[in-house]
Structures are given as C-alpha cells and as structure tokens.
C-alpha cells in the first residue's frame, strides 16, 4: 500500500475523526434546535440534517454560501469512519463480538436515518363525512396542475412542481397541446379584490383573476402556518395566446377553459399522492368527559376500498391505533368543522423498522460485551481467591 492510500485509510479509521464528527454533530443539533424558533421543524430538518452543507443566504441577495457541514455530510463521514474502523481495526473474535454487534447496530441506525430522509413521505388526508378520496396531500409542497377532464372516468393530470414554476420559464410537455408560460410567481401571497377606482389593476385576462390581484407576502416558517403560492400563468397555443390566468391556492373553485374541443382545468394545489385504494369517512366521533370540554376519545370510522375490488372493509382509526394499508400508515391527527371533518396524517416510511432493529442490536451488543467482561472479571477474582486460599 503506498503512502497516500495509507494516509487516507488512517484518516478514515481514526478515532480522532470520530470525536470531531461527534462534536460537529452536537454543534449542529444545538444550533438547529435554536433555529426551530425561526424556521419550524420541517425547514430545520431540511436545512441542517437532510443536507450536505448548511447554507447561509447573504442578506439582500440570492447567493447562499455553505457555512457548516450538514447532517448528510457528518452522518455520511461517520458511517464511513465506522465501517472503515470495523474493517481495519476490529478483530473478529468472540471477545469483541459485543462491541462488533453494538457498532453494527449503530451503522444500521445511521443507514436507517439516511433511508428515512430519502424515502419517507408524510402527507395528510382531510375527509368530510361521506367524502371519498383516492389521494393524500402534501403539507408543504405545491404544484401547478393542468387537468384534461374530457374522459368521463379519469382525469389526465399534468403536474408542474412549484420549483419549476419558480423558475418563471416556458413549460412544454408531451401531454399538453399548448405551452405554459409563467409570467409571475409568488411563494407566499394573498389575493385582493380589485377596487372599482383606485389601486392595482388585474394582470389576468381570463378566469377569476380578472377581478383580483396577487399581494406578495413574506414567507412564513411557523409550524401552524402555510405559504400560499400564487402565479400568473399564460397559456400559449400554436395559434396564439389563450389568455393569462391567476392560479392560486386561495382559489378553491376550479377554473376551466376550452381548448381544441376539450375542457382543461388550471389550479395551484398541494402536491397530491394518489393511492390504489380510496378512503371514505363514514363517521367521526369525538367524545368528551361529561360536563367538560376535555376530549376523551376521538376516532374516524373509514371505509377502505381498493381499486381492484379485492378489499372493501370498514376500519376504526383512533389515537395510537392507526390504519396500516398498502405501505401507508394513517394516524388520527385532527378534526374540523364541528366534528364532521377528520384530518389523518399519512406516513410512508419503508425503512420504519430499521431503528427498532438497530436499537435491539446495540442493546444486545452492549449486554454481551458487559457479560463477557463480567465473566472474565469473576473468573479472575475466583482464581485470585483460590490462589490466596492456597497461600
């Protein structure tokens, strides 16, 4: 092995690196915890832990510079460090089996967090009594959608992620017979009715937006608030512009237009995840302790019906008793509208078992190691006692 490779190996195997990484991760956790006040838990997770570098935006500019290693960077190095140490420094002997198992558990824990960060998806499902939905909605991700309603049974949805809208470019797609030009985009906004005399004039030439203007708002990071994006969208067909629409999450009613004999809908909405089954809310129950407003129990009776007709059953979802179906877990999360609407939290995390397995491995490993040490100690002491008795 040449000197360069050896220095690399020594660096990645070193305990010094482990200690530095642990110190860095402590600082990262500490700063991120404080920053939750400003950003809220989700933005903090994205900025500090699910990133390679913590970026700091230079005030009054769009330039961001990395100022600290992020969770993926520290965790990734820690993982390499652990694996390398395992390979090069730990001897595979029974005496060290406990340590080996505990470290293997730690590796699995790090991998579990990585997989969770990469693969887990959280969304919510809001159902009014009697309502059926095939989809859940994202908490924070939005999309501009153009929907072709010409088929009586299914809709053709062309979904443009908010990130693409934010670029304010022309968007073309094989399923769209026209071009979508983003004229203006506001990540958080409010709408204002156009006054009859004074004030700003509308930008939109079609749809509800002809009487409205978008008011830009500051981005919000509070955990119980949401940014409401809006945009002015021009539909440009080969024969010319079809008009400018105001698309916003403030608008709940569909805006439709005709093009080439088909009805299209344009909307800005939370990203939807469609599932191969539908949930219907049959009844929401909210029991209180008699004579008080203290909730005793609340639950949602839902009907789960799969599209292939194989499954059609009723389920009761209540606190600590979620519905697990089709790789998704539906938790009872909230309610609304005088107890006629339920809000379910929908989590999909294929790696949800890994932390449990990792903790069991680490616990076992430490017990084994302690047991081995204890056994050795007892043996030594009994040998010493025997020697003392013989003396």
């Amino acid at each position: 092995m040449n000197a360069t490779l050896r220095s690399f190996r020594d660096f990645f195997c070193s305990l010094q690196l482990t200690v530095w990484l642990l110190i860095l991760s402590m600082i990262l956790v500490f700063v991120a915890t404080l920053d939750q006040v400003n950003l809220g838990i989700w933005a903090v997770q994205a900025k500090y832990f699910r990133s390679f570098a913590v970026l700091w935006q230079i005030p009054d500019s769009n330039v961001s510079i990395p100022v600290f290693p992020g969770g993926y960077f520290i965790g990734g190095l820690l993982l390499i460090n652990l694996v390398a140490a395992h390979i090069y420094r730990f001897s595979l002997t029974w005496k060290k089996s406990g340590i080996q198992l505990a470290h293997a558990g730690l590796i699995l824990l790090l991998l579990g967090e990585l997989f969770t960060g990469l693969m887990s998806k959280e969304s919510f499902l809001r159902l009014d009594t009697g309502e059926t939905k095939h989809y859940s909605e994202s908490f924070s991700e939005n999309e501009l959608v153009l929907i072709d309603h010409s088929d009586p049974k299914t809709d053709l949805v062309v979904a443009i992620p908010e990130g693409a809208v934010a670029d304010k470019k022309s968007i073309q797609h094989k399923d769209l017979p026209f071009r979508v030009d983003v004229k203006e985009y506001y990540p958080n906004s409010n709408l204002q009715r156009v006054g009859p005399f004074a004030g700003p004039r509308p930008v939109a030439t079609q749809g509800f937006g002809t009487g409205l203007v978008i008011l830009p708002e500051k981005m919000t990071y509070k955990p119980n608030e949401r940014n409401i994006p809006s945009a002015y969208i021009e539909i440009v067909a080969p024969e010319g512009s079809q008009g400018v629409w105001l698309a916003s999450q403030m608008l709940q009613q569909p805006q439709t237009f005709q093009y080439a004999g088909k009805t299209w809908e344009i909307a800005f909405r939370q990203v939807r995840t469609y599932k191969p089954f539908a949930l219907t809310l049959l009844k929401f129950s909210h029991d209180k302790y008699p004579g008080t407003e203290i909730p005793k129990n609340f639950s949602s009776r839902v009907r789960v019906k799969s599209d292939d007709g194989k499954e059609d059953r009723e389920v009761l979802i209540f606190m600590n008793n979620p519905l697990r179906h089709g790789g998704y877990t539906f938790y009872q999360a909230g309610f609304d509208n005088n107890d006629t609407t339920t809000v379910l939290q929908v989590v999909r995390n294929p790696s949800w078992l890994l932390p449990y397995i990792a903790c069991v491995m680490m616990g076992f490993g430490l017990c084994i190691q302690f047991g081995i040490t204890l056994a050795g100690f007892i043996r030594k002491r009994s040998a010493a006692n025997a020697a003392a008795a013989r003396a």
Partner: protein
Amino acid sequence: MSFRRFSTQTLVAAALLLAGCRDKEVVSYRAPRDSAPPPERPKMAGAKPELPDGHPPIGGAAANAPAGGAMGGMAAAGLPTDAVSKNNALVWTAPANWQERAPGSIRKGSYTVPGEGGAVGDLSITAFPGDTGGLHANVNRWRGQVGLAPLSDTDVEKSITSFEANGLKIILVEMVGPSGNPPTRLLGAIVPYERETWFFKLTGPDTLVASQREAFRTFLSTVKAR
C-alpha cells in the same frame, strides 16, 4: 486531502443538482375523478382544525386548505368575484334570535334575521385582504347594491358614523334604497383589522332592518380579536 475535498464537493454538487432536477420534473398521470364533495355544513365562526389538548402539532402546516373561496356568487353590482382573507381573526356573539346559517366559502359568518310576518333579513360577514379599494369605494358599492347613486368622497364622509369597541374602529353606514316594495334597507359596518377589511352587512325589508338598528350595533360591540 485537497483532492478528496474537491471530489467530495463535486459529488455534493452533482447530488444537489440531480435532486434539484427531480424537484422540477413535470409529470403526467391519469387519476380517478374527484368525488363530488358533500354538501357544505355550517362551520363555527372562525373554526380552525383542532388538535386535542396536549397533542403535538402535525405536519409543517395547518392541515387544512386556506379558507379560500369559491369565487363568484356575490351579487355585487359591477364587481368582480371576491378574494377571501386567509385569517379568521375576529370573533363575535350574535343575538339569540338570529339564526346562524352555513357561511359558504366566501362568508365568515351568515345569519338569517327574522322579522314580523315572515319577513327575513340577511346578515353577512366577510373579510378581504387590504383595504379593498378604500372606504369611499366600498360605501358606494353598497349604495349601488340598494339602487342609490354614488356619493362624492366628502358626502361619503358625512354619511358615516364610527365608534370603538374592543380596540377596533367600527365604521357604520346606513342607507335605504329609493324603490322597491318594501324598499331595501342596508346597515353596514366596515372594520379595518391587521391589513384586512371586515364587512358586516345587514340587508332586508326597510322596517325589519330599521327595527334591528340597536341589535346590530350591540352585535357590533361584541366583535373582538380572536
């Protein structure tokens, strides 16, 4: 070490770029049609999705769509459709004999005000961002709704009275239409609050609305910030 750092940075940049690309990819898919929503039920004034006491907040947002609106349907003379405020920042207490109705998606509150002989008045509560064109324009908009000609700014100022309640400035206006049998009377209140304008409007047959003048004012004095 410097080479390693360079290659790591290259990898990071590539990963970020790839992630960025994935976030911006336009996709198309076929989806089942949305089922028709069930009929709207009455909401508590300013109801918000609730979590039980002690429940940690879920998700990165209030798990509800904004109180945005079904646009249109407001029979406002010559006015376009409405934008609806996001907040339910004010609360109020209505007289016992006013019957609360489902507010729909535009209104924040909606009441039927019963009178003699089966006559009914309609009380609507709405809120919009900004000043929605200002006081003069809004008073004249209401005048148009009952069939009156617009007033000059000075005359609008003369036609209003205002009082304070719970730290809010409440601007009152009253008008009666020139025609109709019976003519329509309108009692209106405009309440600016935190970059929004709230409108409380009672319309109905002349005598009925006139008889509710005190009740309306008392009702307005119960309006307060949440």
